[in-house]
Every structure is written in C-alpha cells, then in structure tokens.
C-alpha cells in the first residue's frame, strides 16, 4: 500500500494577535501594556490526500483555508500537530521539497512587475535548476496551452489581471511540481477567464497527474475541478467528501419550477396535500416550489395530471445556497 501524498494529523495553528480598544487613550495605554489574544486559525484538523487528487478546500473568510495551505507549503510553522507532504515536513523547507511544490496565489505575484514575464520565467528556471531542454519544452507547452504568446514581451505591470494570472500559473508550473497549492486563483477574473483557467487546470491535472489543493470562494471552480471537497469553518474541518454528497445531505429537497397555461390557476390547496412542500416564489405565472426529494416524483405526476401545466422543470438547489447554509449554521 502506498502512503498518501499529503497527510495531516491534529494540525493546529494559533496566532497571537495584539488587540486594543479604539481611541487615543487606549492606544497610549497599549504602548505600556500591550494586550494579546490567542486566535486558533486552524484547530486539530486531519486529512489525507492521494497523489493526483484535486481537492477543494472551501470555507468562509477567515475559516483557516489559507493558513492550512501556508503550513503545507512551508510558510508557517504549526503550533501543534503533524503534516507530511511527499514525505517531507513542509516547514523545514528543504530545497528538495520546495522543488516539488508550487503555490500560486491569486492576490500575490511571483513575477517581477518591471520586466516582461519571459525574464522572470528564465530566472525561475535557474532557481529551480530546470535543465535548459526541459525548461524550453515545459515553457512552450504552457505558453501554447494558455495562449500566452502576445503577452511575453510586455512588462508584467502592463498585463490585465487575467493575463497576469496566466503568467503566474506558468511561473508556478514550469518546473513541473508534483503538488500544486492554488489559493483563490480565479479571484477577480471575469467569467470567460475563469472558465479558461479551469479548463487549463483540468487538462494539466489529467496530463501530469499533479496533486492539487484549491481554495476558492467560487463554487463553479469547485464543481468543475474538485470531485472531493474539504469544508473548513472556524478552523475546524467539518466536511470531507464528495461535493454532491454534501449537497444531498444538506439540501434534501429539489426545486420544481412550473408555469401554468392559464394565469389564474390557484394551486394553494394542491400544495397542502404534500408535507414539507412550500412555494418559494411566484412571479408572472412562473412558480418555484421546494419539494422533499422523496416527494418529487409523486408531486410532478399529480401536477401534470390535475393542473394545466405549460412548462415544468426539476432542479437541484444551487450549490452556493447549500454552502451559504453551512456557513450560516457552522455545521454540516
């Protein structure tokens, strides 16, 4: 049996945060008697990730997602617990380890802003000791895949956010790391660019069998890329499994959308025949019902049989609504 690529046991990170009351008096007082508070950003989390898996690490702002990634990439020392990535302890930051990982952050740049990206790529190839022939091959493949040719001669500061993000991905992948930590890579990008980056990551993962942990606030990223999600809330890992299972578990209902052929149809009495069914919206003859999954077949059959239906569709509730529900309640 092979050991997992990433293994985390009881990982905990506590930050010591200075705090004071607002106002001049409090600020003078804090000069002489500073106060600190311990904040547990990550609390005894456990998980394992196999080589080649793409896992979405999701949670509200301040949940501990980025702190977890920073520990795994070696940027932070944990307060307690163990973590091994590819057999290394990340925070020892051995050069052999750092050559096997890449961390791409949507809000941080690995590129020098004053010069064209090609110059930064060249420096990175030397820092990561990529043989020239491999560097040329990897670079050409990435440039082709991301359609980067028109951008290579412009200084990075003159690139748009989406163009820069493409270059960040090249910088993070040109030495072919085995493990990729992506911290909100689609942050601030337009829908078309988000879709292109997702397609790229899918292809790259399939071709190179790279292990990926992705943090994001866009559920479209997760649904497109990650068969498995880990949901973190207030530093605790509260769900680890398939996204669809999570949706079913949290939203044991479906949305039935219908339109009547006559505008005056009243179906209030009809709804009361089914337990736990409610009308969510009614507008211009279009209605949305929330129906328990087990009742959907029976309800739609009876609808079609007894009422003048012009159009009908059955949908899962949007994943954003499911996730929002967890963020609100703090539990699965």
């Amino acid at each position, binding site marked *: 049996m092979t050991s997992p690529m990433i293994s985390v046991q009881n990982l905990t990170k506590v*930050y010591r945060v200075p705090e004071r009351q607002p106002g001049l008096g409090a600020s003078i007082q804090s000069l002489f008697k500073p106060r600190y508070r311990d904040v547990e950003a990550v609390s005894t989390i456990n998980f394992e990730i196999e080589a080649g898996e793409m896992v979405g690490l999701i949670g509200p702002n301040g949940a501990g997602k980025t702190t977890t990634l920073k520990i795994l*990439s070696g*940027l932070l020392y944990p307060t307690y617990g163990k973590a091994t990535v590819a057999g290394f302890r990340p925070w020892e930051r051995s050069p052999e380890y750092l050559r096997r990982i890449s961390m791409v952050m949507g809000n941080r740049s*690995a590129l*020098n802003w*004053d010069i064209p990206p090609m110059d930064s790529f060249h*420096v990175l190839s030397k820092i990561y*000791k990529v043989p020239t022939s491999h560097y040329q091959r990897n670079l050409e493949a990435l440039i082709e895949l991301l359609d980067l040719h028109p951008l290579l001669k412009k*200084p990075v500061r003159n690139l748009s956010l989406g163009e820069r993000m493409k270059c960040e991905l090249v910088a993070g992948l040109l030495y072919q790391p085995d493990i990729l930590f992506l*911290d909100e890579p689609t942050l601030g990008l337009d829908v078309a660019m988000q879709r292109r980056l997702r397609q790229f990551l899918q292809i790259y993962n399939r071709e190179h069998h790279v292990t990926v942990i992705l943090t994001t606030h866009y559920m479209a990223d997760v649904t497109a890329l990650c068969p498995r999600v880990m949901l973190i809330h207030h530093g605790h890992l509260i769900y680890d499994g398939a996204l669809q299972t999570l949706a079913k578990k949290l939203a044991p209902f479906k949305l039935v959308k219908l339109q009547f052929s006559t505008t005056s149809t009243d179906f209030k009495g009809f709804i009361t025949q089914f337990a736990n069914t409610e009308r969510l919206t009614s507008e211009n003859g279009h209605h949305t019902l929330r129906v328990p999954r087990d009742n959907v077949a029976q309800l739609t059959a009876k609808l079609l049989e007894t009422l003048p239906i012009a159009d009908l569709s059955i949908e899962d509730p949007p994943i954003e609504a499911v996730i929002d529900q967890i963020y609100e309640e703090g539990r699965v």
Partner: protein
Amino acid sequence: MNHQGGWELIKNTWQSWLQHRGFFFLLAFGWMLPLLVYLFIWSAAAGDGSIAGLTQETLAGYYLILILTNQFTYATTNWTVGDTIRMGQISRWLIQPMSPLFHALSAEIAGKVVFMLFSIPVTGLLALIIQPQFNLTWSQGGLFLPAILVAWVLRFFWGYWLALLAFWATRADSLLTLQDTFIFLFGGHLAPLALLPSWMQPWARILPFRYMSAFPVEVLTGHLRHNEILWGFVIQAGWSLTAIILYRLVWSRGVRHYESVGG
C-alpha cells in the same frame, strides 16, 4: 548554494532597477550632499592652514573618497526588508528553493552597479573642480580593496539583522535610522576621526560604525600607521563575523515567528 540562480537573479534585478534609474540617480545625489556640506564646513575651518593636520586639499581627498565608499557600502536593500516581512511579500521567496538572502544580495549588487553609474562620473567631475590632494600608493590601494569589501559585508549584515527584527516589531526599520545616525557620528561623516572630540575617538575605534565607512578611506588616504591598519582589519572582521552570526540567529528564530499576513 545555487550560484546560477543567484546570478540570474542579480541580472534580473539589475534590469528591473535600470527601469527606474532616474530615481536611483537622485537618491545617490541626495546621499552625496551632506558629505559635500561637511567638506565645505571643514575646508572653511581649515582656511589656508590646516586643522588637526588636515588641509583643504587633503580634506577634499578624504571626503571625495568617502562619498564613493559610502555609496558602495550603503545597503539600500535593508530598507525594504522590513516591509517585505510586514506586508507578507517575503512569502514568495520563502517557498523558493533558494535562500531569501540571495534576493537581498542580488538587489545589493544590482544596486551598486546602478548607483556607481552615477556616482563615479559625478565624483570625478567634483575632483576636477575642487582639486583634492591624494598620496596614494599601491600598497594602500591593495589594502583598500579588502577594507571596502568587508565594510560592505559588515554594513549590509548589520543592517540586515536589524531589519529582520521586523519578524517581531512591525517598524523595525527605525533601527536602520539609528544605525545611519551612528555612522554619521562615528563613521567619519560628521568629521574625519582626527577631528572628533577626544572622548569620542576611543568609541569610534571600538564600535562597528567606523569600519562600515571611514576605515577604508583612512587606509587609502594614508592616515593610518601599520599597526592601526592591522588592528582595524581585526576589529572589522570581528564585527563582520558578529553581524553574520546575529543575522543567522535572528533569521532562524524569525522565520518560526513569521505570520505571513495577507492572502
């Protein structure tokens, strides 16, 4: 050690800095001015005679070489180290398989080239105007080279370990201002060592600041006897070693304390 990566980084930083050469030339000009002011003050004090054995011409020679030495040993990079820690920008270097020290060194070396592109011709022009007097010998020149190189090592690592205190105190760069003040007082900027008050001279000989700036100038201009040069090198090497040890100590502790804010 990844020398090839380090060398590429230096070239890369140099290209980047040359984009802003106007800014760096102005910065270099700003550093020259206080030393020129002190040259004119002491020249006026010396008048047609001399002061503590220094004539107008020898003072001009001292200060012109000091201008170049100061530009060479001034560690500009250290002023940005604190910000990179405070703002979390050092994170991108920490996850690269090369010590972040290389980034500081590359900026230093690239910076020297950019600053010297301005300082050498301007100092040469000043020399033509104010006619300094030098008594240069080959042996003084030979000793000047290691003295100025170690002066840079000492000034860089002393400032670097102070800047790394930003791992704990958010505005540790104020300590760099203090370092510059001590260099101004004890490092031969305010006055050549011979002109300092007698109570200050022993302190200047013991503290590290003279060895970051004035010592190479004194070696080159022939102001020191053989045993003074020898002791000067011993003290300079001792302080350099201390600075490197302090850097390693603060770095290893600081990285554990790093909170990588932002993102």
